[in-house]
Every structure is written in structure tokens, then in C-alpha cells.
């Protein structure tokens, strides 16, 4: 077990708390950078998807895991990002302009969706965001002159400063770079006043506002940042699949995105990435398993059933998600043989004060 001896306030601001972390994250970075030279084309494509979904996961984690607001409409932000990118690219806008545009437009939409969050809570907020998703889906389907309706839009490969990233490697590095930047941005936010305000809103709105946190500003801000990240992911997604139609951004997609956060571990930045990886790897595992299953079971519905089951199992047995499971495992080894079963159980809290609204 490691004991950190703290000698300065500076230490608590560091992203890497000790040498072990530097080593492991460094190793991970090296492996990820070397990946294009070691793995096949198919695995590369999966890695790109993991990066893209990680960015969405980060956005959702900020909103769901750290601000405590629920959204069942993130596929809509993904759509806004994707369509903005597709349309701007068709007009010949360079990528380094169109990507921020996709983020900003998504953020603007996120800000608007955040407004109901000032009045709605929990399931009602979920319904409001769900409605937003349906609206965007309808608009992208019906506004054929702009979006091409159900016949969709095609995208060319990304061109960055005159370099065409049409092979897998270039695009992979782009996705990886943006993922790392997003992680850094979220981590930075979480160690500054804004991130603390988000967490305060999650834990107790009433005392957050008594500490001077403007609930309206910060809730809408959280929605906007979350949507901006999702918009960036949307633009990458559009390039990845090269062809977008409204069917890719349905409510079902939104639910899958929320699954990332829940499977990964609500309230952990790691959880966003782990959840995204899980979401991408699980279908592969299912299709592998299909070869060994009898014909009647291995139908097309198998994936949805497994997904549903996994979600239920996680919520019942591991509400802290994959990252929570990892934390427990690590603690078990660190403390061996002194680990207790209840160590991570949240303590029963004392009576909360009168819920004022």
C-alpha cells in the first residue's frame, strides 16, 4: 500500500499523484501510440470507436456523474455535431474550423436543453431531454433540403492542414489526440471552482446555492459543455462512418450512451473510457459467442438482451460500475487479508434537512 507524504498544497493540484501513476499512464500512452503498428485494421477501427465514444462518455459523465443531471437526449447532440460537420465539410470548410463549429452549435443546443433543467428533476428531466432527442430526430428526417432526410449525407475523409487523413492511422491519432484533450479539459475543470460547483449541485442543490453557486448558470453550463464534447464526438463519428442518416441518432442510441456512464462507473472520469471500451467490445464478444450457441438463441435480438441484462446486473450488483469494481479489486490486494465486504458501501446518512424544493 502506498502512503503519500504531503509537503505542499501544490501536490493536491497535480494530475498524477505519484510516480506509479506516471508510469502506468505513460505505458498506456506508449501502447496506444504504437497500436497502429501492432494491430490489424479491424482492431484499429474499434479503437477509433472507443476514442469517439469515450469523448461522448466524458461529456455525459460531466453531466450525469458530476452535476447529477440526467439526459436521455445525447444522441441528438451527437447528431448536431455530425450534421454540422457533414454540411460544413460539403461547403469546403477546413476541419479545424468545422470541428469547433460542431462543438459550439452543440453547446448552444445543450444550453437550450439545460434551461428546463432549472425546473425539472430526475425522471422529468429525462423525459424533457428525451423529447428533445425525438425533435432533433424528426427535424433531421424531415428537413430534406438540408440534411438529405433518410437518404443521408456522405462525408469525405478529414483533411487537416492539407494532409488527408484517409488511412486508419492518421484518423486514429486524431481521435486519440482529441480524446486526451477532452480528458485533460474535464480533469482541469474538476479541479477548479467550476467543477466543484458542479459536484456541489449534484450533492445538495440547496447548500450549493447557499454557498453562492448560481444553480441556473452552472446547470446550463454543464449541459453546454457536455453537449460540446458530444458534438466533437459527433463530428468524428460522422467521419468514421462516412455516411450519416437520422436512424443512427435515435433514442436507442441515447440510451446506449447513458449505458457508457453507468457501466463505466458514475462519478469517475475513468468510468467514461472504460464504459466506452466495454460498449464497443461487448458486441464483439457476443458475436464470438454466437458460434457456440444453438441456432435458436443466436438470433439478432441476442445483443439487446445481453445489453439489457448487463445493465440490470450492474445496477443491482455494482452500482459503481467497472471502475468501482477495479477500485475494490485493487483495495482487496492492497489490504490483503484485511479487506472487508462493506468497505465501499455508502454509509447510511443522517437525516437530511428539510427538502425545500
Amino acid at each position, binding site marked *: 500500500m502506498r502512503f503519500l507524504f504531503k509537503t505542499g498544497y501544490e501536490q493536491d493540484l497535480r494530475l498524477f499523484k505519484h510516480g506509479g501513476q506516471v508510469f502506468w499512464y505513460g505505458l498506456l500512452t506508449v501502447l496506444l501510440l504504437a497500436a497502429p503498428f501492432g494491430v490489424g485494421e479491424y482492431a484499429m477501427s474499434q479503437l477509433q470507436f472507443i476514442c469517439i465514444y469515450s469523448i461522448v462518455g466524458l461529456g455525459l459523465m460531466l453531466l450525469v456523474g458530476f452535476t447529477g443531471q440526467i439526459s436521455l437526449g445525447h444522441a441528438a447532440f451527437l447528431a448536431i455535431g455530425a450534421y454540422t460537420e457533414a454540411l460544413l465539410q460539403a461547403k469546403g470548410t477546413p476541419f479545424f474550423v468545422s470541428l469547433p463549429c460542431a462543438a459550439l452549435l452543440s453547446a448552444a443546443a445543450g444550453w437550450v436543453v439545460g434551461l428546463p433543467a432549472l425546473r425539472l428533476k430526475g425522471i422529468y428531466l429525462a423525459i424533457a431531454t428525451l423529447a428533445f432527442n425525438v425533435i432533433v430526430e424528426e427535424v433531421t428526417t424531415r428537413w430534406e433540403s438540408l440534411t438529405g432526410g433518410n437518404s443521408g449525407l456522405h462525408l469525405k475523409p478529414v483533411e487537416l492542414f492539407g494532409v488527408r487523413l484517409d488511412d486508419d492511422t492518421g484518423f486514429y491519432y486524431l481521435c486519440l489526440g482529441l480524446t486526451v484533450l477532452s480528458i485533460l479539459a474535464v480533469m482541469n*475543470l474538476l479541479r*477548479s471552482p467550476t467543477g466543484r460547483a458542479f459536484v456541489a449541485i449534484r450533492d445538495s442543490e440547496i447548500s450549493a446555492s447557499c*454557498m453562492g*453557486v448560481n*444553480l441556473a448558470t452552472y446547470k446550463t453550463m454543464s449541459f453546454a459543455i457536455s453537449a460540446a464534447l458530444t458534438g466533437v464526438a459527433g463530428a468524428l463519428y460522422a467521419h468514421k462512418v462516412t455516411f450519416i442518416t437520422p436512424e443512427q441518432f435515435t433514442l436507442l442510441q441515447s440510451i446506449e450512451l447513458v449505458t457508457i456512464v453507468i457501466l463505466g462507473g458514475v462519478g469517475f472520469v475513468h468510468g467514461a473510457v472504460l464504459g466506452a471500451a466495454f460498449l464497443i467490445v461487448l458486441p464483439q464478444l457476443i458475436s464470438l459467442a454466437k458460434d457456440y450457441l444453438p441456432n435458436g438463441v443466436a438470433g439478432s435480438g441476442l445483443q439487446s438482451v445481453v445489453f439489457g441484462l448487463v445493465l440490470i446486473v450492474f445496477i443491482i450488483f455494482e452500482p459503481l460500475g467497472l471502475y468501482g469494481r477495479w477500485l475494490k479489486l485493487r483495495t482487496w490486494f492492497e489490504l490483503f487479508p484485511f479487506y472487508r465486504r462493506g468497505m465501499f458501501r455508502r454509509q447510511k446518512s443522517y437525516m*437530511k434537512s428539510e427538502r425545500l424544493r
Partner: protein
Amino acid sequence: MSFFKAENLGIHFGGVVAVDKVSFEVKRGECYTIIGPNGAGKTTIFNLIGLIYPATSGKLFFEDREINDYSPHRVADLGIARTFQNIELFEHATVLQNLLIGRHRHRRTSLWQELLFAPSVRRAELAQREAVERVIDFLDLAKYRDNLVAGLPYGVRKVVELGRALATEPKLLLLDEPSSGLNPEETDDMAFWIEDIRRHLGVTVLMVEHDMNLVSRVSDRVLALNMGTVLAEGTPAEVQANPAVIEAYLGKAA
């Protein structure tokens, strides 16, 4: 210039009149206590001051500024901090993080700087941390600094909540039953701190409290309420001797 003043403050929930035409004035630097039997409207007054409930009548003034139309977070910005009767801490954060949230109104950095964690943000964070450490020293919380609030005993949470309010560097501190749920020793510590908060930090304290021992030890003036109306105002001894107050607590002699 008056420091804090409530004029004809009143609120009713439907037909229930919770607070009715209550007026009082708190002078800078004093400890002013509101007492009264259960349901007298004490906490409601706090919620009116925090603008968590909109007052149905009356006015509130802080440093000669009318604050009725403010929103709750702006009240905090003015320098009014509060604690809650049943503790409203951020349970899944450490003591340190809880206190840092108290520094929210002193933040100076913009979102863009924070996203990049610019040097100015780093400097500001170190300054905030120092301010928080002063509170930690003051309240002797050093050994709990990195503990999650969810795992702390009730008495310590009460102190952490006081610390969080102090971290905002308030001018006026509202304490809602600071001694409720504390054992006699902890209550004694609390009395000691309240005195220190006034003397050394120069913070004005407005308090709701039941423990008359604590009240008479720390407060300069006391306001007794019953059923939302004022019974008496004066020094602790005066109010305790007031026949109307005795009647409210003990009932009429048969």
C-alpha cells in the same frame, strides 16, 4: 447605517401563518439569538433571510441594501453564510473539498482558463487552499482533512459545516441550532468557537438555538418567538425572566 434589519417580515403557507410581522435588527459584531418553542418559525426566518422562501410580506435589509428580490446565491455573494439544522454537507466529498466549495464566491477565474488550468488558476487555487487551511486550523479539523464526510461522526460534521460557512468569509453568519445533536463537550467547544468567530474573525452571528446555557453564554441579545410572532427582545437574562416567554415554554399557571 444598519447592518442587518428585518422589517415586518411575514410568510404564510396557504392558511398557515408561519411568521407574522417580525421585525428585528442585528448590529455589526454582535451575537443575536432567536429562541422559541418548536414551530415558532425560527428556521423559517432563516430560510426567509436566505431567500429560499420568498417572503409574503416585509423587507430585509443588509448593509442598507434591500435584498428581497435577490436570488439565494446572490445573498451568499453579499457575505451571508449559513449552516443547517440537520447538516447539508456534500456527503461524497472530503472535508477539504467541502470547505473549498465555501470559497466559491471568491473565485476569480473564467471557464476558459479553468479548462486549460492556466497558471492564474493554479495560483488562485493555491490561495483558496491557504484560506481553507486557515479555517481548518481555526476549527482544529486537520486530522479529518482528507476524510469523506459520509464517514464522519455527527459532531464533526457539524463543525465541518460551520467551517464551510466560515470559508466563505462571511460578514453575517447564520447558525441554525449549532448545538443540536452535540454532546455537552462538543457544545462547549461550539460556544468557544462562536465567541472566537466574533472576537477574532469579526463576524456577526445570528443564531437559532434551544440550549439556553449556550445562548446566555454567547449572545448579546435574544429575540423570543412563539407562533410566528415576537414575544420579547432583550438580553438573555431579560428574555428568560419575561412572563410571556415563560408562559410560551411552560404554559399558564393553573
